[in-house]
């Protein structure tokens, strides 16, 4: 902690934080986009269907005054 405090205390422009943050985000974003679009369609479809197969009865919301 003291080391970090010492190093950061000398920093003239703490504006490096937003820049560093942007870089971290961009790296993460690129990795996720690449990864997501590499997923197989069969897997993706199977996962997307999960709420629809969680029980035998789907929606029964039809009203008596319909």
């Amino acid at each position, binding site marked *: 902690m003291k080391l970090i405090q010492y190093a950061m205390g000398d920093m003239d422009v703490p*504006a490096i934080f937003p820049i560093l943050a942007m870089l971290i985000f961009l790296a993460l974003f690129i990795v996720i986009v690449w*990864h*997501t679009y590499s*997923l197989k369609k069969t*897997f993706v479809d199977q996962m997307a269907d999960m*709420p629809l197969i969680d029980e035998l009865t789907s929606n029964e919301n039809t009203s008596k005054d319909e």
Partner: protein
Amino acid sequence: MEVEKFYYDNKIVKFFAYATIFWGVVGMLVGLLIALQLAFPFFNFKIEYLTYGRIRPIHTNAMIFAFVGNAIFTGVYHSMQRLLKTPMYSKVLSYIHFWGWQIIIGLAAVTLALGFTVSKEYAELEWPIDILIAIVWIIFGINMFGTIAKRRVDHLYVALWFYIASWVAVAILHIFNSFAIPVSFMKSYPIYAGIQDALVQWWYGHNAVAFFLTTPFLGLMYYYLPKEANRPIYSYRMSILHFWTLIFIYIWSGPHHLLYQAIPDWAQTLGVVFSIMLIAPSWGGMINGLLTLRGAWDKVRQSPVLKFMVVAVTAYGMATFEGPMLAIKTVNSLTHFTDWTIAHVHIAGMAWNGFLTFSMLYWLVPNIFRTKLYSIKLANYHFWIATLGIVLYAIPLYWAAVTQSLMWKEFTEEGFLRYPNFMETVVQILPMYYTRVIGGVLYLTGAVFFIVNIVKTIRQGSFLAYEEASAAALPPKRGKRLMGEMIHGWLERKPIRFTFWVIIALLVGSVFSNIPFMIIKTNDPSLAAVKPYTPLELQGRDIYVREGCYTCHSQIVRPFRSETERYGEYSKSGEFIYDHPFQWGSRRTGPDLARTGVVGGKMYKTAAWHFNHMYNPQEMNEQSIMPAYPWLISNKLDISSTPAKIRAMLILGVPYADDYPERANMDLMKQADSIAADLKVNGIEVSSDREIIAMIAYLHKLGRDLIPMTKNTPEKEIDTPALLSDQPSLEAGKLIFTNNCAACHGALGQGNAIGPNLIDNFWLHGSKDSEIYKSIHNGIPAKGMQAWKDLLTPAQLQQVYSFTVSIIGTTAPDSRAPQGSESIRTKTE
């Protein structure tokens, strides 16, 4: 694989659903009451437990943690069991969670009404309740992760990711924002002070919106929208992108609540940049939701569930566009501290959270009661009346925000504030407040339709407490990545690793935006001139916090000319180093108070003025919407707590002498006696042991330490202008007098409890023309009269001076008794 039979627990779902409805109505009724109070202060009833400052936090806590909180748990307990094909991990934990949460809500309502508050928005509750929240939240977590552990479905669906992230983030936020030093059973001081406290609070506040009001509801959207539309989510790929980018970005954006305030520029920039970036994942989620209905939009016409869902998701898109726009500094300079913020949160709260909750319950209640919705027609009435309610709520507030902000900022050609009297800007927006009440009534009426529909549905149905289901058990030892399996697919099967990465995503932003303030000295400078609060001021500050004054008054002057002209010197970060908690506020229903203690400053008011104002604000200005605080005059100040408070401050690093706790009350009484004596000189008899004395001491402390920093310019000789006698000039002077002077001197100049009689022949500051003009021009700062030279043009000064002289010798009913020495003026004077 053998198929196992098990039972979903619908009973706990029903409990949470009922609690959602009950607390929703309670929260909306309290919301309606505070909307009425802002329009008509009579609705404060002069009862301390019902004043705006105390019940506004009850409204926000009720809507966020009681209504929305219970709605989240309803949906989570219902959908999680089905997505994981298992009952909840522990029925006992489910019910401890349920009752624990309801007890917390009840305690919150009672303690906030009693004035036990930390005053940090959406985190107002005192430390014992904070601990209870942490315990109940952990119980919920054990139950949730336990259910995940005994699941019969290998992959966690996207809704569950959002539930996990919400749980983790809320735990982190709640714990770190709640660190405090207890003073007594129901009183504590946050460990953070000033800008640190502000940063941590808005890191919490912004992310309470993110991880309590947004991510759990996105989980509900990802489950209930496909269910009702009977089609899968539009893009599972997009949901992965949506999830990770959203939770990563959200956590950085808190500083956008503090733009142009006393935090370093780099932190503000950080907040702005990440807020704007937030549009992308938010809109990704909205688009994913809406496009799920592609080819099925005809269903929206038929299904009230989808109607509510579509408006909810659209409102989510609107609010998540509006939020980043409000985080742009130039936009923020106009909208911050105005009703725009209130409109923004209500678009999100009423339409996104409210409508999605209604949608979910319209789907869920018939489902667990094995029946059909009682009436689609009634649900449609609910939809339209509530939508109209939202429109009538939000649009007037947007209008009020722009109107008031522009009035605050407008200058005359001569360079003076056009509306120096803050009250003028409040009166201008009162019609919008009346309309807002109508919007709230409509929304509540819609909720009544909803309750009738749900009650009738329940009555016609038959509740299935434990619903039979079956699924194959998961094979053991399924941890390794399968051949060709992508990392995310594998991660979806590994809840602990998944949670680990969620924590990392959340911590990166938290560390970057908070830690520098703890360790870099230059980010949190101190000012040598700033002294710790005296014991009496500290007690007064606690009363200020107790009464929720921060809900209407900010204590931070932004570096805009319109603010420095109105309030005085702009705020510096070093001013707040002893402020546990900070009191910057987020809305200026009343004026900023950061410079109230600067003698001779634009905001200075005398002890007598504060006394009378607190006793009855409408007597001072009949258009004021501030509640009266008569109990501050009747309540005796509890000084037995002083030593403990000073000790707590010492622990927090406030530089009192080590033995000061024991002798603090002696200083307190000395200062209280001097204020009481000052009041007595002004004709107010009050015992020095009353709470009002401490409140006055605190208000007179605000900004006072900066006096040595202001320039002392020698007084110039003032040229007294000629007296005007033409009717138009005197009429103009009368108008200025009515707007600016009548509050203290009476409408006819007859004087009142604050200011002296101006129409008799007795004078406190001289009867000569030059002396009268000087009093108006320079004010009498020591007695709370401001220098009108700063607020009026020379022409206006001449007009109001001429009018004031013209009414000398007139008569008026209820004139104040003479003060000062008698001197009959002659015309030649």
